[in-house]
């Protein structure tokens, strides 16, 4: 049997093996390319601009969040100013595109994200030299200071940053390797998908390099890393610089999509978005930030259409995650693994079904209260009104408020009772898995 396998030519074995091992990646790319066609407007013969922009935003923000997780998840460095590398990469790209347009530089549009990456790399090395002297809380503070510094500079120096107006640019410079002029957002979207795939694969491979492994070691026990003979500071420095490269690519993709780069790409809110996405998705796993970005951008694009409160919902989700599920969505999924391995996952269906209604009820109550509150102030200023089933709801009367409060508090109490039942079932199953010698 073994003789037979070894005699098979390696190439024929390896090719299907690669396909079998890496099919999720190919499937993800296929889904990314097929998804816009679901929203294709066949009567007008064009893609939905909203969907394409949203998907592009998911793509570029997930590159940014993954590069953020190179620091947070892998190296244990919490950065509050990561957007400066994203934004500076974007500014470099915008200037490069304008130079291509003016004819002073020749560069195919397909390779323009590399400029952003190199910009991020150079700035990452320069800032990294300073910030990686520290770790833990001091690192968080120093990156915050640096972030504020760069954001203030972006408004001060007109030459490079263009002040509040930003640097407008034009992606249709006519230097394409494949003969596409990038006039439609579908063409740009294909380019974005390609670069997101390249950057994601590179970052994935980076986690398996010795540097990636030492970054994990540095995160878990930096004294022992020193003892083994590595310099934790140099590990942090290389990791920071590389993460700058990928953040810069994200910034470059931003420029290609929006054709402008303004100072809010370097501002603290951008860094916060990456942090929220990474934590909600799960910093502990490679794909967590990607998942988190999908959630955050969907909330951002979807909810912001109908409500002003999307950041409050994202913030609320974030707090819930920090308090109850520090591993994020991926962490929750991973905790089911031992139960799935003993084949008892089916027994959780009923407990889950039982906590779903009270959970939904309290979320609904929370949303009702938030929307009522914002209707009285921001919504009133925007002349918005709330109507359910054609029935207009007056935010100044007591009934809607009481309904919301009852739903929130009642749902919360009910949820607490059901959660206790769930907990008992869960603990029993985990004990069962432990008894079978599975790591929990």
């Amino acid at each position: 049997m073994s003789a037979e396998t070894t005699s098979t030519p390696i190439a024929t074995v390896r090719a299907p093996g690669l396909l079998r091992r890496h099919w999720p990646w190919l499937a993800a790319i296929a889904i990314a390319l097929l998804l816009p066609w679901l929203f294709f407007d066949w009567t007008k013969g064009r893609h939905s601009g909203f969907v394409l922009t949203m998907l592009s935003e998911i793509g570029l923000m997930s590159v940014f969040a993954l590069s953020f997780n190179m620091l947070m998840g892998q190296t244990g460095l919490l950065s509050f100013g990561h957007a400066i590398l994203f934004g500076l990469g974007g500014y470099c790209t915008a200037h490069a595109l304008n130079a291509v347009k003016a004819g002073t530089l020749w560069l195919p549009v397909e390779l323009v994200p590399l400029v952003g990456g190199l910009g991020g790399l150079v700035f990452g090395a320069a800032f990294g030299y300073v910030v990686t002297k520290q770790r833990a809380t001091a690192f968080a503070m120093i990156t915050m200071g640096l972030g504020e510094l760069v954001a203030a500079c972006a408004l001060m120096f007109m030459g490079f940053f263009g002040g509040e107006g930003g640097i407008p640019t034009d992606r249709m410079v006519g230097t394409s390797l494949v003969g596409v002029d990038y006039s439609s957002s579908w063409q740009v979207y294909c380019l974005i998908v390609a670069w997101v795939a390249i950057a994601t694969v590179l970052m994935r491979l980076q986690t398996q390099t010795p540097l990636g492994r030492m970054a994990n070691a540095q995160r878990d026990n930096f004294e022992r890393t020193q003892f083994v003979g590595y310099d934790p500071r140099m590990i942090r420095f290389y990791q920071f610089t590389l993460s700058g490269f990928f953040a810069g690519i994200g910034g470059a993709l931003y420029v290609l999509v929006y054709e402008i780069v303004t100072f809010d790409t370097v501002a603290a809110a951008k860094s916060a978005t990456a942090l929220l996405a990474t934590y909600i998705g799960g910093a502990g796993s490679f794909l967590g930030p990607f998942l988190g970005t999908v959630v955050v951008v969907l909330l951002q694009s979807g909810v912001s259409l109908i409500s002003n409160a999307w950041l409050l919902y994202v913030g609320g989700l974030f707090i819930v995650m920090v308090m109850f599920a520090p591993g994020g969505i991926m962490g929750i999924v991973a905790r089911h693994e031992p139960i799935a391995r003993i084949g008892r996952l089916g027994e959780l269906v009923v407990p889950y079904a039982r906590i779903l209604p009270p959970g939904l009820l309290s979320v609904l109550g929370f949303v009702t209260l938030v929307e009522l509150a914002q209707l009285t102030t921001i919504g009133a200023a925007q002349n918005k009104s709330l109507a359910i089933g054609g029935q207009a709801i007056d935010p100044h009367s007591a009934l809607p408020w009481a309904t919301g409060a009852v739903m929130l508090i009642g749902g919360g109490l009910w949820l607490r009772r059901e959660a206790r039942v769930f907990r008992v079932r869960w603990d029993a199953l985990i004990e069962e898995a432990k008894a079978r010698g599975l790591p929990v």
Partner: protein
Amino acid sequence: MEVFLVSLLNGLVYGMLLFMLASGLTLILSMMGVLNFAHASAYMLGAYFAFTLSQHIGFWPALVIAPLLCGLLGAAIEMYGLRRVHRNGHIAELLFTFGLALIIEKVVQMTWGLLPVPYRVPAGLDFPLFSIYGTHFPAYRAFMLLISLLMFGAIWLGLTRTRIGLVIQAALTHPDMVGALGHNVPRVFTIVFAAGTALAGLAGVIGGNYQVTEPAMAFTMGPIVFVVVVFGGLGSLTGCFIASLLMGLIQTFAVVLDYSPADLLKQFGVTVTSATPFHEVLTVPLPRIGALLPFLLLVLILVFKPRGLMGTRDT
């Protein structure tokens, strides 16, 4: 000279306001290791509470009630939020307060609107106290100075003369030993967190009408307070005091001194024109760099002296 005196007074007022915020934050950070991002949010809430309360019951009751409300909120956050997150480590605690700051900002926007609210100086204090070289010094600023000095005295006496103050001081440096001696360290934490939040609220009450009461005030004040805490050094109230005054003076003087690096170079016979490399950097006037200086100082001090001015241990 008159510019110097007036700026000195204004710088002192601003510095003492910073100290009110920073003293609570430095106690929380040194004792609990929690970098409290929501601290400046308490400052904002103090201002907004005082605005609403002063519309109904006047400024003076609000001066007492608003900080108490902030303190209660702080105690609740510590007991029901931070303690639960504590077992996941310091980074989780930091992230928790960060999320809290985001939410508080949004809630404030939803309750009081996006625009600044008309929170004004009480009529009884709205007169010029004295004039220096023709510039009026408002009585309200003197009142702010008075309040912050009283508070400074109260903190100092409380920490050095009372039993709980001594326990807090001990817990600053040796929390485990204090716990081993039978003191309820978690309760001490709650008290410090609540007191720090109340102080931030008080700073908001008297600072909200001195500056502008708007939803962005927490995110503009927060980073500066961090700078003060890091600059002063962990575990040192004296360092925090010096750093607050320094930062207040630096920011006030940067606004009034209208010079740029180009003017300095001119003293050495170098004239900066638009052809000089980096001319944009060289011709930036000092008032515009003013907002930037605290962060420059933060980066520099963390790089060269991570312990801050008078800190006893690394950040």
